[in-house]
């Protein structure tokens, strides 16, 4: 008898009554997607949770992937048995014997959800605990601070015995809360913002502003790499690369040097919004954090944000930079984000950008551009290149070795 099953516990979706079936199906689909490379796995859906049978696949490898699937609160490797006392006892002993190094203290917690089972929880605690104690030398019971808590869950579909609970990402399954457009710069913040919103069940497409030749091909490659990392969490992701050079150089020539960043970011929001409309996204996501830089003072956030009519989600708004960095490290985007290639946000940036831009002056500067502004925005949208990425692949890449044809 070995721990051939994983109990997967869903998080917040269990609180939602009405669309529960849809959520559970979405959750199952996301788990299957994430674990697609483990071909032997079989799945068994139950009320509020999911059972995965390993069928010989490595628990550690599956666990490593599973911990990053949004919507899962925790999971446990378990032995599944029929609802028979003898078999449950045997399973309990097997689970305890698999613990390495062997524990000195333990306790048993039985949960009898299936009331048709003849023994109640208290009886079962004794029946299982005594069996384990009898067969394990040097093991004692400690109900307050046990080294191992042996859990026995008796449910209609069978009994599950386990002693380890691995925490997972939590949140909602991806796609449950609709779609949004992430402004992905290449810095540390925006990928974290993306991850946080994806965790809340938001499907994301990313938009990146590329000012070639002022910004290099490498800076674009860097953003593709970040999108690919986010696609690890999201399965796949569309990355829209917007040619921003002409609009940006036009803005740089307006004569409002200190407002450059404000004007630029307003233009970005407008373009992102058009792309969002095209792909049915209902919000914009940015990595803005209050007070971090000149464009992220409350006054700037106000003036910039007014350029968009879609809601702007700013999950990092109240976070400290150090916490954002820690999070970036944890989700695996930090190393890429700190690569030195310049992105377009650092171009034409004045020495002292406005921290308190005046909305009327900003609007006047934009009016001066007249039809140019609209034309350049339209051209930028029309010239946008969309790359579809997964964790390992990208739609604009050639097959290995085919570069020799060019």
């Amino acid at each position, binding site marked *: 008898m070995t721990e051939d099953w994983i109990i997967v516990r869903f998080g917040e979706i269990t609180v939602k009554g009405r669309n529960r079936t849809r959520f559970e199906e979405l959750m199952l689909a996301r788990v299957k997607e994430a674990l697609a490379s483990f071909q032997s796995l079989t799945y068994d859906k139950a009320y509020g949770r999911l059972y995965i049978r390993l069928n010989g696949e490595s628990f550690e490898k599956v666990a490593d992937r599973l911990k990053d699937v949004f919507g899962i609160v925790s999971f446990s490797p378990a032995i599944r048995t029929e609802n028979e006392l003898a078999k449950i006892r045997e399973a309990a002993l097997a689970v305890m014997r698999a613990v390495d190094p062997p524990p000195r203290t333990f306790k048993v917690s039985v949960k009898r959800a299936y009331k048709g089972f003849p023994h109640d929880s208290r009886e079962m605690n004794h029946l299982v605990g005594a069996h384990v104690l009898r067969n394990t030398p040097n093991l004692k019971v400690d109900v307050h601070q046990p080294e191992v808590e042996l859990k026995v869950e008796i449910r209609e579909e069978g009994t599950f015995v386990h002693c380890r609970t691995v925490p997972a990402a939590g949140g909602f399954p991806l796609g449950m809360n609709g779609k949004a457009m992430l402004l992905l710069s290449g810095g540390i913040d925006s990928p974290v913002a993306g991850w946080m919103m994806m965790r809340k069940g938001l499907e994301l497409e990313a938009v990146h502003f590329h000012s070639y030749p002022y910004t290099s091909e490498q800076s674009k490659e860097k953003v593709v790499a970040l999108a690919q990392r986010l696609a690890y969490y999201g399965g796949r992701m569309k990355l829209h690369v917007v040619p921003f050079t002409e609009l940006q150089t036009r803005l740089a020539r307006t004569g409002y040097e200190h407002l450059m960043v404000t004007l630029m970011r307003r233009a970005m929001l407008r373009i992102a919004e058009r792309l969002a409309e095209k792909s049915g996204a209902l919000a914009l996501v940015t990595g803005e954090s209050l007070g971090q830089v000149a464009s992220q003072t409350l006054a700037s956030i106000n003036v910039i944000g007014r350029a968009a009519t879609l809601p702007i989600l700013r999950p990092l708004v109240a976070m400290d930079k150090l916490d954002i960095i820690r999070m970036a490290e944890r989700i695996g985007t930090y190393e890429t984000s700190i690569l030195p290639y310049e992105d377009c946000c650092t171009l034409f940036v004045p020495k002292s950008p406005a921290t308190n831009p005046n909305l009327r002056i900003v609007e006047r500067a934009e009016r001066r551009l007249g039809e140019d502004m609209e034309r350049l925005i339209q051209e930028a949208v029309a*010239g946008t290149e969309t790359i579809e990425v997964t964790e390992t692949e990208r*739609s*604009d890449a*050639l*097959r290995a070795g085919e570069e*020799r*044809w*060019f």
Partner: protein
Amino acid sequence: MQTLYFDHSASTPPHEQVIRTMAEVMAAHYANPGSLHRAGGEALKLVERARASVAEWLGAKPQEVVFTSGGTESNNLAIKGIVGSVGRKRKHIVTSAVEHASVYQCVRQLEEAGVAVTVVPVDRDGRVSPEQVRAAVRDDTVLVSIMHVNNETGAIQPIREIGEALADCPHVRFHVDGVQAIAKIPVAWKDWGVDLYTGSAHKFRGPKGVGFLLVREGVRLAPLNAGGGQEHGMRSGTPNVPGIVAAAQALRLAMEGAEERRARWRALRRRILEGVREIPELVYNGSEREELQAPHIVNLSYPGMRPEVLVHTLEKNGILVSTQSACSSRSLQPSRVLKAMGFDDARAAGSIRISMGDEHDETAVELLLERLKQAVAELKPLAKTR
């Protein structure tokens, strides 16, 4: 006897690597680039990669490259595309007297359909004057079409100056047939104010049946064929994936080291002219100013001799050249181009074209001169005296 191929302006031997690439792509990527499945996507990626590469080598944006079936289609697409995109009835085209048949006949066809045409003359060097081109432009002019390098004589037209002269005519589109120019002389079409530029792959060691038209962003063209709307709607038809990839590779191979090749051809061309001067029966048709001539083409006449006789005699001696251009060489008419340059019928009807490629060196040129001398000696008794 070793055969020497001196007819590169007619077509070039494809690069070995290009032949391999074409075969490999043909075998591996047979899917239609318009198909939604993965195989289609991969074929599309190759076409787009090729487009980006062509764009980069020729100073264009990828979206400005339209792949076609070759120079003739590109020229027709440019000319008829512009004429067709203008709604009003009265339209006027300016072109030159020395254009390739695919421009000249295309314009003729439009003339029959009611489009007004002005054909500007050329001087003794075979060049148009930018002032005359500008003077020919009218209010209803929609297009000026002037070739870059003449396919018979190698004369280089003053494209930059024409572009400058047309700068104050925003209603006029400027098309340049660059088939003989690409990879032979520098091409800065955009800087020169050119709106449409034609290229053909088999002139730079790529496959036949592939060409492109560079279309400046913002220029609208009426497509020649109705269909699936490929190539940004400008050229319907399933893209020739292997040909396009091979063409892009051929262009890169031709552009890498183009300068060094150009210098080599220039030196060889000087030697050919020197050798020809020693054969009194032959006259050179072209400018004495080297910078006005493409480095790889020499046009000669044997007045009083039917050129196909000279071509066949040379062939017997292992030298392959063309009379006039390969396209019109079967017509036996005096060359329209040479007549436009002011030469009489005897000289215009007796011309041959020698055009060089990568494989030629001093030895090959010495052999060419030697056999040319020999052929002329053989034919001399048969020549009509002037």
